[in-house]
C-alpha cells in the first residue's frame, strides 16, 4: 500500500489514554489554564487544543482494577470529590489471610501493607467514567475509539502520535470505509496508555529510557460477582497469601466487598515464574474453590470477568519519564506501589504533576527536556517518591521465593526500604522460565483444557464471554509475531508454548494442522488488552499493537 495521505491536526497537548492518569492530567491542566486566564495571565491559553485519545469504545471500557483507592490524590484534583465521585464504599475491615489447601488463618494483626482503613472500595471503570465527564465539561477534546498507533519522532523526542488506520481488512487491504490514521502533532505528548503501553514500549526502547531494572509485571485476573445477601459486608477487604500460589511464585488473592451484595475477587500472579506451563487462569479458578471463597460465592452469579497486567517493578524500574516533547505518566511509567498494589492515586498524582509541568511549558513556550524534566523533579519532591522510595526493593525481594522475600522485606520495613541489598537488581520476568527437561505433553485440545463446573469455576471461553470483549473480525491481527517459525519449532521444545497458558483470554492456541504439524492460531477477537503476551513470551517476539479503535473489553462496573 502506498503511504497514505494523512490528515494533520495540531494540538497544544495530546494525551494518549483516558485512564485515571490521562484524565487527571487533562482535568488539572484545564483547571490551571482556566485559573490562569481568569486572573488575566498572559499569554492566554486555551483548553480547546488539548486532545485526549482513548482506544476503548467509551471512557472506562478498558479500565480494570480491584480496587481500593487512596483518596488523597483525588482530593487534590476534585476537592469536593466526596459529594460527586462514585466511591462505592469506605473500607470497613481489612484482613490478611493465609490459605492452605483446606484451611485459612487470619493474621491477628493485619500487616501494615494490607491496612486499608481510610480508603475506598471503588470500581475504576466508574471512576474513569466520572472523571471523563469532568474532563469533557472542561472543554478538552476527548476522542474515544482512537488509539495511538505510532509515535512521531522528532529531534531527541516526540512530536505527536499517528492514530490507527481504520477500515483495513484481515489481509491488509483497504476496505470501502478505509480511513488513514490522523497525524496528531502536539507540543507535548503525554503517554498515559496504562500498563505496558505499546507506544511507551517503543519510546523507552528508542531512547534507552530504561532504569537500572527493567519493568517487571504481574497479571491480575478478576471476576465480579453478585452474591447472596449476608455473604459479604460492603467495605470488607481481604488479601490472601498461600494456596494455591506455590512458595517459589509471587502472588496472592483479593476479596473486596462492594455495596448491593457485589464482590470483587481476583488473583495476582507475578509474571516471573519458572514453570512455563503454569496457567494463571486455572490457578484463579482453583483459588475460588477454597472454602473461604466458596462460602461467599455459593449461590451467586458471575457478572463480569477481566484481566490486566500490573507494572510491579517499583522505583528502580521506572523508565525516565520525559523526553523532548513527551512525558510518560501512570502505569505506563510504572507509577505503582507494588507492596500495597495501589496505583490509582499515584496515577492521578502523576497526571497532575505532568499537568503542572506542561502548564509551565505552555507559558514559557518551551517543550524540550529543559522544562519537561521538571516533571521528574516534581515527582521526586512529591509523596509519589516518599511512597515508592520506601518500597523500592519490595518486588525484587521475592525473586528467590516467598521466604527469602519475607526476610528481605522485613528488613526493608525497618530501614525505610533499604533492606539488606539496595538497589536490589532484577531480571525481566520472561528470563525466569526454566527450559523444559522433557518435551511438554502435546497441547491439550482447547476443549479438553480446564472446564470448570460452570457454577463456581469457569473455562476461559465462558470467562472471556463475560469480559464483553469484541473486535471487528475483519481487520489485521493486532498481535504481531515477529518470528512465527519459532512457535512450532524452538518454543515447543524449550518452553512448550506458554502463550496458551498465560493468556487469560484464550487468544493463543497451538492447533494441530491436518498434516500433523503444530501451528500457532491467534484468536485475536478474544483479546482483553491485558498485555500479558507482550510481557511474558520467552522470546519476546509478540508485539501487541492497537487494534482498530473501539475494540476490546467492556469493563462495566470493573
Amino acid at each position, binding site marked *: 500500500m502506498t503511504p497514505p495521505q494523512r490528515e494533520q491536526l495540531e494540538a497544544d497537548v495530546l494525551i494518549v489514554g483516558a485512564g485515571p492518569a490521562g484524565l487527571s492530567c487533562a482535568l488539572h491542566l484545564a483547571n490551571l489554564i482556566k485559573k490562569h486566564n481568569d486572573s488575566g495571565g498572559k499569554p492566554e491559553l486555551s483548553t480547546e487544543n488539548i486532545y485526549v485519545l482513548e482506544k476503548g469504545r467509551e471512557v472506562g471500557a478498558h479500565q480494570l482494577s480491584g480496587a481500593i483507592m487512596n483518596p488523597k490524590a483525588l482530593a487534590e484534583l476534585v476537592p469536593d470529590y466526596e459529594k460527586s465521585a462514585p466511591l462505592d464504599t469506605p473500607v470497613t475491615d481489612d484482613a490478611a489471610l493465609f490459605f492452605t489447601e483446606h484451611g485459612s488463618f487470619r493474621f491477628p494483626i493485619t500487616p501494615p501493607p494490607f491496612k486499608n482503613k481510610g480508603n475506598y472500595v471503588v470500581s475504576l471503570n466508574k471512576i474513569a467514567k466520572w472523571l471523563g465527564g469532568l474532563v469533557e465539561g472542561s472543554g478538552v477534546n476527548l476522542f474515544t475509539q482512537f488509539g495511538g498507533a505510532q509515535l512521531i519522532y522528532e529531534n531527541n523526542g516526540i512530536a505527536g502520535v499517528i492514530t490507527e488506520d481504520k477500515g483495513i481488512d484481515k489481509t491488509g487491504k483497504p476496505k470501502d470505509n478505509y480511513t488513514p490514521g490522523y497525524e496528531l502533532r502536539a507540543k507535548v505528548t503525554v503517554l498515559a496508555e496504562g500498563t505496558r503501553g505499546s507506544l511507551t514500549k517503543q519510546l523507552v526502547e528508542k531512547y534507552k529510557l530504561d532504569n537500572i531494572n527493567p519493568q517487571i509485571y504481574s497479571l491480575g485476573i478478576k471476576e465480579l460477582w453478585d452474591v447472596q445477601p449476608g455473604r459479604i459486608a460492603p467495605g470488607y477487604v481481604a488479601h490472601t497469601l498461600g494456596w494455591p500460589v506455590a512458595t517459589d511464585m509471587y502472588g496472592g488473592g483479593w476479596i473486596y466487598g462492594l455495596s448491593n451484595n457485589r464482590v470483587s475477587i481476583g488473583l495476582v500472579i507475578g509474571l516471573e515464574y519458572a514453570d512455563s506451563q503454569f496457567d494463571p487462569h486455572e490457578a484463579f479458578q482453583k483459588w475460588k474453590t477454597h472454602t473461604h471463597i466458596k462460602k461467599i460465592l455459593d449461590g451467586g452469579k458471575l457478572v463480569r470477568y477481566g484481566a490486566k497486567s500490573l507494572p510491579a517493578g517499583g522505583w528502580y524500574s521506572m523508565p525516565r519519564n520525559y523526553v523532548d516533547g513527551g512525558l510518560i505518566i501512570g502505569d505506563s511509567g510504572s507509577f505503582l506501589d507494588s507492596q500495597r498494589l495501589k496505583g490509582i492515586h499515584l496515577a492521578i498524582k502523576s497526571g497532575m504533576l505532568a499537568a503542572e509541568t506542561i502548564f509551565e511549558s505552555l507559558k514559557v513556550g518551551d517543550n524540550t527536556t529543559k522544562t519537561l524534566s521538571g516533571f521528574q523533579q516534581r515527582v521526586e519532591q512529591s509523596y509519589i517518591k516518599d511512597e515508592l522510595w520506601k518500597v523500592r526493593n519490595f518486588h525484587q525481594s521475592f525473586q528467590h521465593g516467598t521466604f527469602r522475600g519475607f526476610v528481605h522485606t522485613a528488613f526493608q520495613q525497618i530501614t525505610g526500604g533499604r533492606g539488606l541489598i539496595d538497589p536490589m537488581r532484577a531480571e525481566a520476568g520472561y528470563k525466569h522460565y526454566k527450559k523444559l527437561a522433557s518435551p511438554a505433553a502435546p497441547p491439550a485440545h482447547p476443549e479438553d483444557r480446564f472446564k470448570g463446573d460452570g457454577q463456581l469455576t469457569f*473455562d476461559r*471461553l465462558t470467562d472471556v464471554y463475560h469480559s464483553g470483549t469484541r473486535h471487528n473480525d475483519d481487520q489485521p491481527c493486532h498481535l504481531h509475531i515477529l518470528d512465527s517459525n519459532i512457535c512450532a519449532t524452538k518454543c515447543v521444545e524449550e518452553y512448550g508454548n506458554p502463550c496458551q497458558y498465560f493468556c487469560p483470554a484464550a487468544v493463543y492456541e497451538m492447533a494441530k494442522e491436518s498434516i500433523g504439524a503444530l501451528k500457532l*492460531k491467534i484468536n485475536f477477537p478474544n483479546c482483553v488488552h491485558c498485555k500479558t503476551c507482550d510481557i511474558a513470551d520467552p522470546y519476546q517476539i509478540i508485539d501487541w499493537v492497537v487494534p482498530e479503535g473501539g475494540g476490546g473489553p467492556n469493563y462495566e462496573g470493573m
Partner: protein
Amino acid sequence: MKILVVTEQRQNKWNNTSFETLAAAQQIAKDTSSTVSAAILGKGLSSLADDLAGKNVSEVLLLEHDLLENYTPDGYCVALKQLIESTKPDLILFPHSYQVRDFAPKLAAQLGKGMIGDCIGYKNESGKLVFVRQMFQGKTNADVTFQSAAPWFASFQAGAFRADLVEPNTSGKASVNAVSVNLSAEQIRTKPQDLFKEAKSAVDLTQAPLIVAIGRGIKAPENIPQAEAVAKALGGEIAASRPICDEGWLPMERQIGSSGQTVAPKLYLALGISGAIQHVVGMKGARTIVAVNKDQNAPIFEIADYGIVADIFEVMPALTEALEKAKNS
C-alpha cells in the same frame, strides 16, 4: 374526511408496505365515511399508477417531475406541500419506511403540524380517530390523538396492516390525475449518489426453519459432506460454530453465535458442538434443540431438548439413512 395515502416506489418497484398503508386507509375510510386517494411521486410511473388505479381509491394523484426521479427529501417535501395545499386532504398517511422517516416529519413541520409515527393501529372512539403506537420497546401501547386542525400526518409500522387485504376497485379503474409540480434544482439541497448495492449473501440463516450445525467435533473439512447430507435429507441449512468458520471450512455467513448470526429455527441439530456460551447465545431461541456429542458433560446438553451421547460419525450416516427412508416411504 379526505384521506391521502403517500405511496413509495424506488426505480419503478413498489415498496409493498405502501399497500399496507392503503389497506389501513381503506379501513379508516369505511369507519369514518371518508374518501381515499393515493399519491405516487417519481418519473415514468404510468404502470405503477395503473396498479393503484385498480384499487378501491377515489383517485390516483401522479406527481411526476425530472427532479423527483431520484428521491430527495427537499424534492418530495416541495412537491407534497404543493399537493396538500391544492387538494387539502385531512389525513395524510405513510408507510413507516426509512424514506418516510427522512422527509415526512420535515413536511409536517413545514405545514406547522405534528406527526404520529410508527403506529401499529388505530381506533375510532365515537368519531374521534385515535392512533396506537408502542412505547418502551413494545412493552406498552399509547393512544395518541391530534389536537390541532387538519391536515394530520401519521405513518403505520410495517406489518401493522395486511397488504393482501387492500380492496380492489370494483367499478373499473380510478382516474389517474397528473398533478403539476413546481420544482427547481435550487430548491434541492442534497445530491443523490448511486444507490448503495448490498452484497448479496448466499444464505440468510435467520430465515431457515431447520438448521444442522457442526462444531469442532467434525474434525476435518473432508467430513463436512456427511453433515451436509444430513442437512439435505432434512431439508435444512448447514451452519457452524466459530472455529469451523475461522478455519475457512465454511463461509462466515454460516457462523452462529455471539460474533455470527443469531437464529431461532424450528429445529436446531448441533453435531459435535460443545456448547460454549458464545455459540449458545446465537441459537438458544430455537424451538427444538437436538445435540449429538460424545462428551456427556458437554454444556450443550444443558440446553438441548434431545441429546445423544454418541460419536457423530456414527450418528450422521444413520440419521441421513433414516431421513431418506422416511422421505421415500
